[in-house]
């Protein structure tokens, strides 16, 4: 059972470069497909500029996609307009990374949580107030907090407010865009547990976007790894992290500093930085950093293919690379 199907989603941004010079195109997201399933979490992981946030924003039409479909039931979100789009958005809500800039400083906590309900015309002022109190308690705050302004809350509490606001219209899909990245680790654990509890109670599907592989592994059922706008690997969380097939996933995992002091330190070390999405390398976009690259990799772009049961990778040599421990 699928609640949202993203098919061949592509997002491009034009960059203007002065009056007479030809503009260039950033292909931020290319040919990305995935399904969201109620009650489960899809993790979307990758480094800066890989297109993971753009994918999330495009899926709820906060930015416009260039091509593809986002199907909610039999309706394509990318084609909706006006009131239809607004109603549809109530089904897909998002929690942003920065709990400081994503809350209106002039509204009280109660005002922030009630705003989506007002915009959608849900209930009366009285029922909305009751709903706000209920939401505050569900995210671990108390109704008394409703009268305070965002600056009177700590970072963790603010993120709870962001979650309460997102849950107010009772969405079927919750997108978390680096939702715990700005939080201290002790607070991060509280918010991760809260999200898991809320998901278990309400059964929404979650798209969890993060650069933190450890957190993604912890929260996700299925995981997608992106590099320069494309999906390079996809599998269920355990399979992907226990037996990664793409050299980029292997490199990401071996780059995480480990608390395991006895872990052997044979690592894959990537050279250089992620290439610019304005100037994506030919063939496999990862070939210029890949320690296993062959001549073919710079010429021919590997398609995302199923290598093992339910385990997809976009690499010419997937399954044939010895993974160093």
């Amino acid at each position, binding site marked *: 059972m699928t609640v949202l199907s993203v098919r061949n989603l592509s997002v491009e941004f034009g960059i203007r470069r002065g009056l007479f010079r030809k503009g260039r195109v950033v292909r931020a997201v290319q040919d990305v497909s995935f399904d969201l399933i109620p009650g489960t979490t899809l993790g979307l992981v990758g*480094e*800066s500029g890989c297109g993971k946030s753009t994918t999330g924003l495009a899926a709820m039409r906060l930015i416009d996609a260039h091509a593809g479909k986002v199907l909610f039931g039999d309706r394509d979100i990318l084609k909706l307009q006006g009131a239809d789009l607004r109603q549809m958005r109530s089904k897909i809500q998002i929690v942003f990374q920065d709990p400081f800039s994503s809350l209106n400083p002039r509204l009280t906590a109660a005002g922030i949580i009630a705003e989506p309900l007002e915009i959608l015309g849900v209930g009366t002022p009285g029922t909305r107030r009751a709903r706000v109190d209920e939401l505050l308690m569900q995210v671990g705050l108390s109704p008394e907090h409703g009268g305070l302004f965002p600056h009177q809350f*700590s*970072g*963790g*509490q603010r993120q709870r407010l962001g979650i309460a606001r997102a849950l107010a219209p009772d969405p079927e899909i919750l997108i978390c865009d680096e939702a715990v990245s700005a939080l*201290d*680790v*002790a*607070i*991060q*654990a*509280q918010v*991760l*547990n809260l999200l*898991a*509890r809320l998901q*278990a109670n309400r059964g929404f599907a979650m798209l969890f976007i993060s*650069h933190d*592989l*450890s*957190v993604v*592994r*912890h*929260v996700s059922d299925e995981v997608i790894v992106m590099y320069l706008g494309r999906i390079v690997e996809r599998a269920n969380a*355990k399979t992907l*992290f226990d037996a990664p097939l793409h050299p980029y996933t292997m*490199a*990401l*995992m*071996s*780059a*995480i*500093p*480990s*608390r*395991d*002091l006895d*872990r052997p330190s044979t*690592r894959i*070390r*990537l*050279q*250089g*930085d*992620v290439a610019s999405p304005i100037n994506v390398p030919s063939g496999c976009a990862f070939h210029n950093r890949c320690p296993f690259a062959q001549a073919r990799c710079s010429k021919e772009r590997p398609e995302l293919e199923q290598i093992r049961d339910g385990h997809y990778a976009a690499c010419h040599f997937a399954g044939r690379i010895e993974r160093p421990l």
Partner: protein
Amino acid sequence: MAAAESPMLEVHGLTVTFDLQEGDRITVLNEVSLTVGFGETLGVIGESGCGKSTLALAIMRLVKPPTGRIQSGTIRLGDEDLVMLNEAQMRQRRGVDLGMIFQEPLTSLNPVYTVGEQIAEVLRRHKGLTRAEASARALDMLRQLKLPDPEDKLHAFPHELSGGMRQRVMIAMALICSPKLLIADEPTTALDVTVQAQIFDLLKEIRPASSAMILITHDFGAVAEMADRVVVMYAGHCIERGTVREVVTSPAHPYTQGLLACVPDITNAGTYARGTLPEVAGTVPSLTNLPEGCPFSPRCDRAIEKCTTMPPDVPLGAGRSVKCWLAEVNR
């Protein structure tokens, strides 16, 4: 690796306060003591507001009146107490004896000078080199730091570089005079994980063998990867210290235990089912409104009556101690 007799740096009883606008005074560092031996890396770990960055600034003597004050304590580098030095003397120590790398390289670099000029400036000021000599040394340093096309990068402005390259430039500036002590304050927090790994490797490779490093971080993984010993900070206090292995494998303070347990670990996944990560309840207390006694006691699920008074630093072995009444009771 710990040099037992005379450490390179010895901070003793350091207390730093800041005056707030409302006339309040907060104690950001409270009787902090630590040592760093020759060739050693000390990790300083804690959450936002624990005082770890202030510690770095205080050692660099960048905590300055009218708002910030070193109220008491000593910072001995070799046989000299940095607290007693005046600003002119300190300027001779910074860059030469003490190097520092900040978290956000873009805001720490001067946007209107090229990378080469900024690295060369350190040498011209401290070593009296000519422009050409300094520039050649800067190029050499960029090569060592594996910056691609170092000749071009010398003439680049900070905004033309990626985050990882900028941090390499910061490291070049900090290390160009071969300081005795390098202080790295969250040097990789703004960077992607694959670039972080490169920076960590560089920091291990390029430092002179006898130099010491203080790595300030919130990540126990980074401490385990880089440091020999670690100090855990909470609300301005050093609450636990020991070798990395001691602290990571058998943390003694309830806060350290919580901090280690609450982070999902990719190499130990499956320890906790989703939604059951161990939590440290509550939040870090505000420094304007600290609880009586142990600052962690209101969040501690094992707090006892005694915890309303400040616990002593309980020794647990050579160089290992914990500030907790439970350890005192168990002794």
